């Protein structure tokens, strides 16, 4: 490394790199973790590897996974949305109430998603107008959305009549005869949003805004619009998850959606998205959601009490954070060494 650059370089000449640095994609860690966990559980408990079980697992991960995908965009702009779970719930409740009142199910579902989008927009507008972080605003809107859905639902589960219409049968059905509809949506959405984040102008702007908001604004990026879009996207995605839940389960119970924000943040961080903003991986977040679900299922299969479930998610979160931090220290260390090497 140190001997590479002894020949004098012309100032300004673009020096071709002798050997491009090989950089692991940011999703490597989470893929390895998933493989190791699945392998370990399969070895400890053979039935775990049965396709039926694995499909159930993916289906369980799909809804919080969708929320995690949206959270990647919020984290990428260096914000945190606490209201995800409440928005999920409120969208489902609103759709359920509309269906029960006789509205066309598909229309009700659109209304639910639109409601989620609106809450996201309002979060963004308030944060902008009050000049406070999104986390603060969503602390307030979490309370409000939570209260609203329990008032609308009167604190009880709502089961709208399935009746006619294709909504419930579609969402509780399976694509290709085996893949649950929610899983299909989850996978498609993850692929689409991965492209949006890394290959579109909006994705570029979101990453720039999160990386250094002041520098981004100074380069003429309309950071306010970027923030609003990202938060509206989060709201829409949370609403979508809510109505899928309603369609697949046929009912929405008071506790559904609790802890979604935490699940989503943890999954996103596991997948290589950084808290410090600017970097996100949608695919990583989707895999991160699978990792969490594998841990939860594995514990149940091995007979470890469900009391430890929350312990495990908490420990995973802290571990992911510590890994992120240590990784950053290591990277800056390496960059410094490279600098020193260049001079020497």
């Amino acid at each position, binding site marked *: 490394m140190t001997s590479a650059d002894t020949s004098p370089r012309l100032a300004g000449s673009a020096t071709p790199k002798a050997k491009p640095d090989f950089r692991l994609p940011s999703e490597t860690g989470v893929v390895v973790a998933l493989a190791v966990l699945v392998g370990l559980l399969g070895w400890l408990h053979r039935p775990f590897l049965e396709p039926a079980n694995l499909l159930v697992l993916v289906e369980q991960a799909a809804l919080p996974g969708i929320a995690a995908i949206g959270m990647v965009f919020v984290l990428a702009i260096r914000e945190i949305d606490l209201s995800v779970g409440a928005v999920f719930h409120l969208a489902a409740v609103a759709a359920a109430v509309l269906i029960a009142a006789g509205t066309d199910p598909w229309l009700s579902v659109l209304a639910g998603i639109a409601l989620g989008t609106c809450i996201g927009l309002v979060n963004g507008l308030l944060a902008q107008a009050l000049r406070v972080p999104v986390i603060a605003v969503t602390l307030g*809107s979490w309370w*409000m959305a939570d209260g*609203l859905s329990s008032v609308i639902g009167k*604190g009880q589960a709502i089961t709208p009549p399935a009746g006619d219409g294709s909504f419930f049968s579609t969402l509780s059905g399976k694509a290709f005869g085996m893949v649950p509809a929610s899983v299909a949506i989850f996978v498609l959405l993850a692929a689409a949003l991965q492209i949006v984040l890394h290959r579109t102008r909006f994705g570029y702007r979101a990453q720039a805004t999160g990386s250094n908001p002041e520098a981004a604004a100074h380069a003429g990026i309309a950071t306010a619009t970027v923030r609003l879009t990202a938060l509206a996207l989060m709201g829409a995605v949370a609403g979508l998850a809510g109505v899928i839940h309603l369609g697949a389960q046929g009912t929405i119970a008071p506790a559904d959606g609790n802890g979604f924000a935490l699940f989503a943040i943890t999954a996103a961080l596991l997948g290589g998205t950084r808290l410090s903003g600017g970097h996100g991986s949608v695919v990583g977040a989707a895999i991160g959601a699978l990792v969490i679900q594998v841990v939860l299922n594995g514990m149940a299969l091995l007979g470890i009490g469900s009391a430890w479930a929350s312990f495990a998610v908490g420990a995973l979160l802290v571990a992911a954070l*510590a890994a992120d931090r240590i990784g950053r220290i290591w990277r800056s260390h390496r960059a410094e060494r490279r600098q020193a090497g260049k001079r020497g």
Partner: protein
Amino acid sequence: MENHSFVQRLIARPEFGPLVLLVVELVVFWGINPDFLSPQNISNILAFTVELGLIALAMTLLMTSGEFDLSVGSLFGFSPVLMWTLFNSGVTSLEMGLLIALIVAALVGLVNGWFVTQLKIPSFLVTLGMLLVVRGTALFITDGFPQRTWSAEGSWLANILVGDFYVGPFRIYASLFWFIGAAIVLGYVLTQSRTGNWIQAAGGNPNAARARGVNVNRVKVGLFILSAVMASLAGVISSLRTSAANPNSGTGYELEVIAMVVIGGTALTGGRGTIIGTVLGILILRVMRNGIVLIGVPGLAYNIFIGAIILGMMALHSWLERRHQAGT
């Protein structure tokens, strides 16, 4: 002239908005249901106020230094569980159990502080993880069932913490005095002591504080320990008063406590905090929870009001701040 500027100053204070809100709340509830101000109801409000209030006081200092603690709700549930488990299994006396519970809580605070200051992970997420870890542990100890508690009547510990007596028609718990004492002490610490100046400096501009020789990390770790110990103490007081120790108690308290602090005018971003405001914030939310039921609104709507108050107060503070800046 002098008088005018005094009024102006009063209005510009961050505590003014919450004070008005509290008065309005009291008048409205009282107007709709006169029972609201009955001695029994007032005693009731005060009894509940103390337990969340103790946590909110410590949280005010922590948030002034620019950090959060979300693990307080789970410590509120965990500490009494630990104390009663130790006592019931005959390992320790009740007092010793309390002491051990407080020490464990202090360790939890220390770990929070270590992760935040040494690994530089945002406290919001560290303590969110800790919330789950502590709650999981509480559930594990108890298998998820409420702990059998021994009626604490007569124990000197119970008397000191939650002994009750009547002042006229009002039933007062000893814990109220603990709360008032803590509010006064912490209020003085925040505004009048050197530690308080450290806290405000650490939250306002941590690098500048370091450059002046303030040990920002130590201040923060100390406050994490304080908030954990206060949450644990509040949990024990609550369990002694109700003679119950439920591993699930305290769920969601963290957000309510933060709401109280924010409503009182402490900045979420650190640097500015007020204990008087927090006390008002505590009263606003407790009065709201109590009054809403008394005037016949379904209790489920409570959360909507909290959310609205949080957003409204944030709007007010941001407006005041901007007007203040525009005036210069």
